[in-house]
C-alpha cells in the first residue's frame, strides 16, 4: 500500500486521470504474457510525456518504491510482472512517433509506440522497422528495447539492439540521461548497448531513435517437406555454407504441423519436418538464390517444395507458422512454451535427446524453431488434471534449457529471463559472471527499485516457477500472435 501522501505526489505528477489505484482496474496489470504468474501492483501511472515519467521515477527514487515499465504486456518471461509494493509505469499514452528522418533512415518514437506502427509509418517511403517479434501488431518499442526482441527475420536483420541508436532514459536514481546517439560511435561507454535487453532492471526508457531499413525489392518463401528433422537441419546448414543469408529459416515438426493445420489450414504437406525459407533482396539475386536453395533441399531428400511468391501465399505460409503455438491447445489441454538456443549444428543431437527425455517422462514435445540461428521453441504438452503431470512438464521444460546450455547454447533467445528463468541464468553463468553483471546493475540502480527481483538468480528457497501457457486475451480474440 502506498501512503496518501505518496499517492498525492503521483497524482500531481501524472494528473488524476493518469493514476489507477482501484483494485478492479489494477487487475489489468497484474500479469504479462506469462499469465501463470500474477501480482497486483500498488498503483499504475499512465504518463503522457518524458517529463511525467521523470517525475514518477523521482518519486519512486525518493521513497524507494519499486517500479516497472509496461508496454502491451506481451512479454513471455514475466518481465512486466509488478511488485506488489510497487508502481507500474504504463506507456499506453506515450504513442507518438516523434520524428521520421527518411534520408538518414532513422525514426524517433515514444516508448509506447506499437512495433508495427513504425513500419506502417515508413512503408510509403519504402522502408520498414526490421525487428519483428510475432506480437508486433500489439507489442511496443519500449518493451522491445527492454527485452532486446528478435523475430523470425533477425537471422538476416539482427535484433532490437542492432537497430536502436539512442535512448532517453530515466535512471532509477531519478536522473534523465541520453544514452547513445543518432550518429554512430558516440564517445564514452556504449550504455545504450547495455541498456537494451536489460529487462527493465536499469531504468526506464521514455523515447528512442532507431534505424529503419529499406524494403527489399522482392521476397520469396519456399516450403520444403522432409522425412526427418535432421535432413531439414542439414539443409539449413548447407544453405548457410553456400554463402546464402536468407531473411528467415524455420522448421516445424510433425506435431507442430498438425497443430497449425488444425488451427488455420495453411495446407502444409504432411511430413516429419517442414522447412520454411524466406529470401529477400534484388530480383535477380533472389531468383538465383532460391534456385540454389531448391537444389539443396532436393539433395537432402525434400520430396515436395512449394514457392510462395505472391503476398497472399506468403502470408498464408507465415500464418501457419505463427499460429503453431496457440494451436498447440488443440493437441493438449495444457502446454509450456520454452525458448532455448543451441549452436545450429547441434540441432539433430539435441532434438534426439529432447525426444528421449520426453519419452522417459511420457510427455509429448512439439518443436518449432528459428533454425537459422538455432533458437528452439519446444512446447511441452501435458494435462494438469492428471496428478503430477504439471510438475513433470515444468521439470522437463527446464531440463531442456539446461541441455541447451550443456551444448554451448543459451537459456533464452528472445523471451528473456524475467521472473521465469532466474535460476536457469545461474546455470548458464558462473558466480563471477553474474557478479560482474551486478556491478552494472548497482551502478544504474543502487537501491534496487527498477524491476527488482527479476533476471538475477534468487536464493534457492524461492525456487523456479514456470508454468503452463495461458493465452493472452488478445491472442484468444485473434488479434495477435505471440511467438
Amino acid at each position, binding site marked *: 500500500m502506498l501512503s496518501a501522501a505518496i499517492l498525492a505526489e503521483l497524482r500531481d505528477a501524472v494528473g488524476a486521470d493518469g493514476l489507477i489505484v482501484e483494485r478492479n482496474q489494477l487487475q489489468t496489470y497484474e500479469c504479462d504474457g506469462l499469465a501463470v504468474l500474477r501480482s497486483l501492483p500498488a498503483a499504475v501511472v499512465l504518463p503522457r510525456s518524458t517529463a511525467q515519467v521523470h517525475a514518477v521515477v523521482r518519486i519512486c527514487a525518493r521513497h524507494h518504491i519499486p517500479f516497472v515499465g509496461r508496454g502491451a504486456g506481451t512479454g513471455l518471461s514475466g518481465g512486466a510482472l509488478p511488485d506488489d509494493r510497487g508502481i507500474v509505469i504504463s506507456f499506453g499514452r506515450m504513442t507518438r512517433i516523434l520524428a521520421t*528522418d527518411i*534520408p*538518414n*533512415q532513422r525514426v524517433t518514437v515514444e516508448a509506447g509506440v506499437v512495433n508495427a506502427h513504425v513500419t506502417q509509418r515508413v512503408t510509403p517511403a519504402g522502408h520498414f522497422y526490421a525487428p519483428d517479434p510475432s506480437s508486433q501488431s500489439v507489442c511496443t518499442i519500449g518493451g522491445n528495447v527492454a527485452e532486446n526482441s*528478435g523475430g523470425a527475420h533477425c537471422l538476416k536483420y*539482427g*535484433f532490437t*539492439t*542492432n537497430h536502436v541508436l539512442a535512448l532517453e532514459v530515466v535512471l532509477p536514481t531519478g*536522473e534523465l*540521461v*541520453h544514452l547513445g*546517439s543518432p*550518429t*554512430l*560511435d558516440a*564517445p*564514452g*561507454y*556504449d*550504455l545504450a*548497448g*547495455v541498456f537494451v*535487453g*536489460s529487462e527493465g532492471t536499469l531504468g526506464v526508457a521514455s523515447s528512442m531513435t532507431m534505424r529503419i531499413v*529499406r524494403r527489399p525489392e522482392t521476397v520469396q518463401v519456399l516450403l520444403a517437406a522432409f522425412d526427418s528433422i535432421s535432413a531439414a537441419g542439414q539443409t539449413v546448414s548447407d544453405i548457410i*555454407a553456400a*554463402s546464402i*543469408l536468407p531473411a528467415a529459416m524455420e522448421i516445424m515438426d510433425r506435431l507442430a504441423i498438425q497443430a497449425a493445420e488444425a488451427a488455420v489450414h495453411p495446407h502444409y504437406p504432411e511430413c516429419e519436418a517442414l522447412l520454411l525459407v524466406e529470401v529477400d*533482396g*534484388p530480383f*535477380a*539475386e533472389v531468383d*538465383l*538464390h532460391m534456385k540454389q536453395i531448391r537444389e539443396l533441399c532436393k539433395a537432402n531428400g525434400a520430396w515436395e517444395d512449394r514457392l510462395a511468391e505472391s503476398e497472399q501465399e506468403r502470408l498464408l505460409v507465415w500464418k501457419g507458422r505463427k499460429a503453431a503455438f496457440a494451436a498447440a491447445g488443440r493437441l493438449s489441454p495444457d502446454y509450456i512454451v520454452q525458448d532455448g538456443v*543451441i*549452436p*545450429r*549444428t547441434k540441432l539433430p543431437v539435441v532434438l534426439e535427446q529432447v525426444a528421449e527425455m520426453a519419452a522417459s517422462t511420457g510427455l509429448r514435445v512439439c518443436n518449432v524453431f528459428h533454425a537459422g*540461428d*538455432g533458437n528452439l521453441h519446444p512446447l511441452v504438452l501435458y494435462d494438469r488434471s492428471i496428478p503430477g503431470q504439471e510438475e513433470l512438464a515444468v521439470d522437463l521444460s527446464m531440463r531442456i534449457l539446461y541441455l541447451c546450455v550443456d551444448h*554451448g*547454447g*543459451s537459456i*533464452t*533467445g528472445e*523471451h528473456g*529471463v524475467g521472473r521465469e528463468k532466474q535460476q536457469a541464468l545461474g546455470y*548458464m*553463468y558462473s558466480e*563471477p*559472471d553474474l*557478479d*560482474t*553483471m551486478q*556491478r*552494472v546493475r*548497482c*551502478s*544504474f540502480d543502487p537501491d534496487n527499485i527498477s524491476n527488482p527481483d527479476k533476471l538475477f538468480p534468487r536464493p534457492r528457497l524461492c525456487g523456479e516457477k514456470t508454468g503452463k501457457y495461458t493465452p493472452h486475451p488478445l491472442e484468444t480474440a485473434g488479434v495477435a500472435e505471440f511467438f
Partner: protein
Amino acid sequence: MINTQDITAPLTAIAGAEHLRSLGSTIAVAPANSEEIAAILRFAQENRLNVVPYGGGTKQGWGYTVQPALLLEMHRLNVLREHTWQDMTCTVDAGCTWAAMQSGLAQHGQYVALDPLWPERATVGGIIATNDSGVLRLGYGGLRDLIIGMTIVLADGTVARTGGKVVKNVAGYDLHKLMIGAFGTLGVITSVNFRLHSMPQCTQGFTVAAPAAEPLGKLILKLLHAQVSTVAIQLRGTTTGFDLDIQLASLAEVLHTQAAALEAMAQSVGLSSRAVGGEVWNARQEQMDRDFVCKGTMLPSEIARFAEHVRGLGGESVTQATGIMIAGFPAASGERLVPLRRDMEEASGSLMVLKQPSEMKLDCWGTLPDSLPLMREIKRRFDPEGILNPGRFLGGI
C-alpha cells in the same frame, strides 16, 4: 610507491622471469592466460599500480596519455582457439593479430566482416578497446554487431564471461558491449567470440569523381535507398576534389545489372562511374600517417557538408557512408578545429582527436555527455582503485 624489486619478484612468480622486461620506469609483463592476468591485476590493485594493456601498440596514442607502472603485453595470448565453421562462429585470444585470425578463418572461406586499421599488427583486443571499424561497417555492422561473447578480467582479478557462442542470446546483460570502445578502462579482454560471415563470392569496386562534395553526398543517400548490394561506400576528400568509392558484392550473374543501376544513379547527379581496384580502400589508413588526425561522426546526410568543411581547413578526409570520418589536417589547423567540432556536435555528432602535434592542446574527446556521472560510477564499480588505463578515457575516466 614500492620499489622495482618489490614489483619484479611477485610478477616473476606469476609470469616467469623470461616474460618480464624493464622499460625505464615501466615494467612490461607478458602473461600466458587469463589466470596469470588475474593474478597480475590483483597484485597491481593491491599496490595501486597503473596497468596499460598492450596489443600491437598501434593505437596507444589515442585518448589522454597514461604513464603505466605495468605494461600488460598480450602477445602470448595469440591463438585462434575455435573455428566452428558450420556454426559460423569463432573464439580467439585477444592478443591475436587481426590478420592472423582472418587467415585462419579464411581456410573455410569465412571472416569477421570488419576491416580495422593496421590488421597485420593490431590485435583483436586493441581493436575492440578502441572500437575501430572500416568501410565494411555499412554492410555488416560494427564490433557491437559482430561480437557474441567475451572473457574479461577485472581489476580485482575476477574472470568473467559474457554472452556465449550463439548468435541469438538474450540471457543477462550484454557486458561485452560495455567493453567495446572502453579503451581498456573497465577490464582486460582476454578472449572473444565472433559471429562470422562468408566471404563474398564476387565484388566490384567503382569510383565516381567530382570537384565538389555536394553531388556525391546526394549520391550516397541515393545508394543507401537503392536496391543494390553495396557493402562499402566511402567519400575521399582531398584539397583538389572528391571521390566516392562504392563496393558491390553479389553473385557474378547479378553484378553487371547492379553496376548499370549504379551508373544510372551517378548520371542522375550529372556524374559517371568507373571501375577501380581494391587499393582505394586503404585511404583511411593512409590518413593516419599524418601528424594531426581526427575521427568525426555525423548523419549520412551531413557527410558532404563536413567533407567540404574539412577541405576548407586545408585537410583531407575519408568518410564511410555510415557517417564515420577520419580526417587529417595540416599541423597549423589548431584552434580552427574548435568550430568544426562545435558544428559536428550540434548536428548530433562528435569529433575525437586521435593524434595531434605535441604543441597542440585540443581536448581529445569533446563535449561530455549527460551520462558521464553514470559512466564514472560504472568505472568505480569495475575498477575501484582506478588502476586500468587511468585517465585515458573521456572525462578523465
